[in-house]
């Protein structure tokens, strides 16, 4: 088992962000090499560089000892590197065979030899223990099947190194099991698999070696047998966390939001649940942190609570009303505020002015104009005041939102939502991508709200943020709550384990060490 791939001193600079900072990474032939890290640790960037989608700012890639440069995904593919993206690159209206043949240049004939290709696909699939019908139309397949198609597609096109980007994020436990079997079958045939994940159990179970990334740099590469799950958790999260700041002035008040058995099915109901039986409460004057790695149901939870998505079952009682039955407009008019996760896509209308953006949530109310017309002079006054109060840096209230810096854009959203004087504030990733000053500022705003008796639901993947601000923390994993803890009564390790898929009960019961992950998964 020699080294097949080396990435040396890879740096990738995005505008304003150093996504990869001198990363060195090497993979042996025939191994499953896990790439472990939190969101934003630089895993995906590194892999996108490897598969030719990004060009590194500096550094080099050596494949079987030979230095290579990839200008496109095709270049990488031709050198045997295939990536299975989290969002499948498949065309749903075409059959499996057709999807595998797109852009195929093998063979001299122009004719599409479906039969031959289908035969090869079936053969490939059988060899590695996958079930695939080459003539099935992709759109009719389940998510797990589609992923299989992606893998077979990569193999079909000659991949020797297969990159799987968080492959289990979209799978049911059963499908995940099948996937692991496939991966094993592949490595038995000298294929190399790079497995991107943040789930500790999985990593422990499937990989031979693991490289942990944190904030764009490599923390270390280890043989998996040398690490316990606790070690991995520490490596992944592993920085000192300040529990300093937040001292409470008031006691926590009464229950404000009472969520019971909230569930959300996937579109095809047999594909499992996006949210699974969530039950929690939010009190007045409390910040409830929702922690977890991205894509474990946080977005869905927020969408259900704000009426954008209809929950499949359960209830969310708020001031005597079930939020799940109300429309977005109705929810928002009951003193609920929402700081959406993506300020550019959903929080703001970028080509509109700040004044216009400040009107976005409440324009229809009497206070924004009694007639059918908007009282723009009122909005302008309000805007000027908010710009001052929240010290938003802008040349004028009539500047377009798109011309502001990210921090100031977020301040606009926060200012708008807080100025609505909510009872319940749902904030999702409120500080994502912001500089330290802006983060501090927004944190203080959230604390202020809490002190005013507002119930705050804070969804964040930033461990520090969650630990620092929350009164209680719920950790989500695959749509389920792994446990509810108080920051003062937990440890980084415990949090990491929960984010990686252990329930709090399990952790506390046995200080589990090395329990086979499959038990959890079944």
């Amino acid at each position: 088992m020699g080294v097949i791939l080396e990435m040396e001193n890879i740096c990738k600079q995005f505008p304003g962000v150093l996504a990869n900072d001198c990363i060195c990474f090497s993979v042996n032939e025939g191994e499953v090499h896990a790439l472990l890290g939190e969101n934003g640790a630089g895993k995906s960037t590194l892999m996108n560089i490897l598969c030719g989608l990004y060009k590194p700012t500096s550094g080099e890639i050596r494949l079987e000892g030979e230095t290579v440069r990839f200008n496109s995904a095709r270049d990488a593919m031709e050198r045997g590197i295939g990536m299975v993206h989290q969002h499948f690159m498949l065309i749903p209206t075409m059959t499996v065979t057709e999807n595998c043949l797109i852009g195929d240049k093998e063979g001299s004939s122009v004719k599409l030899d479906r039969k031959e290709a289908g035969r090869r696909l079936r053969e490939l699939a059988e060899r590695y223990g996958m079930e695939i019908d080459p003539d099935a139309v992709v759109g009719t397949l389940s998510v797990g099947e589609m992923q299989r198609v992606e893998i077979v597609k990569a193999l079909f096109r000659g991949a020797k190194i297969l990159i799987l980007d968080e492959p289990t994020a979209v799978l049911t436990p059963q499908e995940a099991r099948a996937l692991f079997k496939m991966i094993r079958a592949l490595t038995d045939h000298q294929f190399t698999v790079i497995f991107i994940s943040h789930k500790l159990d999985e990593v422990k179970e499937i990989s031979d070696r693991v490289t942990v990334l944190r904030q764009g740099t490599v923390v270390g590469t280890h043989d998996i047998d040398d690490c316990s799950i606790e070690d991995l958790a520490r490596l992944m999260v592993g920085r000192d966390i300040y529990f300093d700041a937040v001292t409470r002035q008031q006691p926590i008040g009464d229950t404000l939001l009472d969520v019971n058995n909230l569930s959300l099915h996937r579109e095809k109901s047999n594909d499992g649940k996006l949210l699974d039986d969530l039950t929690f409460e939010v009190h007045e004057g409390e910040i409830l942190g929702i922690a977890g790695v991205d894509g474990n149901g946080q977005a869905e939870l927020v969408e259900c609570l704000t009426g954008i998505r209809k929950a499949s079952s359960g209830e969310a009682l708020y001031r005597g009303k079930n939020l799940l039955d109300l429309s977005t407009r109705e929810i928002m008019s009951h003193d609920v505020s929402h700081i959406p996760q993506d300020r550019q896509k959903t929080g703001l209308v970028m080509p509109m002015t700040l004044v216009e953006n400040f009107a976005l949530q409440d324009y229809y109310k009497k206070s924004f104009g009694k007639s059918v017309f908007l009282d723009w002079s009122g909005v302008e006054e309000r805007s000027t005041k908010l710009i001052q109060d929240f010290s938003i840096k802008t040349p004028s209230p009539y500047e377009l939102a798109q011309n502001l810096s990210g921090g100031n854009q977020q301040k606009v959203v926060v200012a708008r939502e807080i100025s609505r004087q909510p009872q319940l504030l749902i904030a999702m990733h409120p500080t994502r991508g912001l500089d330290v000053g802006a983060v501090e500022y927004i944190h203080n705003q959230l604390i202020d709200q809490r002190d005013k008796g507002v119930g705050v639901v804070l969804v964040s993947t930033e461990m520090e943020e969650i630990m620092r601000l929350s009164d209680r923390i719920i950790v989500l994993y695959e749509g389920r709550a792994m446990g509810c803890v108080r920051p003062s009564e937990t440890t980084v390790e415990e949090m990491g384990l929960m984010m990686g898929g252990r329930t709090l009960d399990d952790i506390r019961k046995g200080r589990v060490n090395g329990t086979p992950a499959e038990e959890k998964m079944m």
Partner: protein
Amino acid sequence: MDLLQTIGGYLFTDIRMAAPVLLAGLGLLLMNWSGLLNIGAEGTMLIAALAAVAGSHYFGSVWMGLLLAMLAGAVFGLLFAVLTVTLRANQTVVGAAINILGLSLSTTLNRVLFGVETTVTKVDSFKVLEIPLLSKIPVIGQAFFAQMPIVYIAFLLVPVMHYFLFKTKPGLNLRSVGENPRVADTLGINVYRTQYLATIIGSMIIAAGGAFLSTGLLNFFTEDMVAGRGYIALAAVIFGKYKPAGIMIAAMIFMAGNVVSNVLQVAGVGIPYTFLTMIPYILTIVALTIFASRAVAPASLGKPYKRG
């Protein structure tokens, strides 16, 4: 026997009238599968109808006319591609402008080229090419095998196009661009080149349809002679569910409306012709409402693609 002969005659007419719409529809289909929505077929056909007459007149051969028409079509296609693919301009707006340009430029150039004569400039036109033996088959022989060469070309293009789109690698690549250019791009397909080629070749096929109007059925150009066939072709593509055979059937059904009205008029049964002209358009709206919920159109039809 007499009845059969009459039916054969209707079929003959239907096929011949459907040919230009079919050609335009097939050209549009090629573009649609590359993700481009071009409503400019009407204008392209008009300029091609003029170019065909001009070519036939100056070079003395109807085939040269066809060639020139297709060249003119290619220029229009290129114009469309530059604006919508490279510059990512709104495809609908550009298509509408192409229609305006086609109508006005063909009128202007017609005058410039042929001046004001008391007689229309007549030129070489397509002759009927009877296929021996086959054309003697009763009832359908004349309809299918005693047509002009360009009619054969149009109908032969149906299986050819079907084969190309659904049985060849370039066809698959083209369709993948129309369905999801990003996927196509990651799989190493040059999206822009594909779209350029599809637009130019597609416009050339549309132009062949225009050429047939002026040098096939007739042998002269008159202003606005396309008379809405470009829009009917647009309708035929949707009605035909983006499949060549479907377009063929749609074109024949739409044109059968004219045949039916011919028959009714000959038989002395008058229905307001204004209602007959509406039929293809109403059918298209009905088809759209039925198909819209299902995915029949290429998924990224009309959406400009930006790399990276």
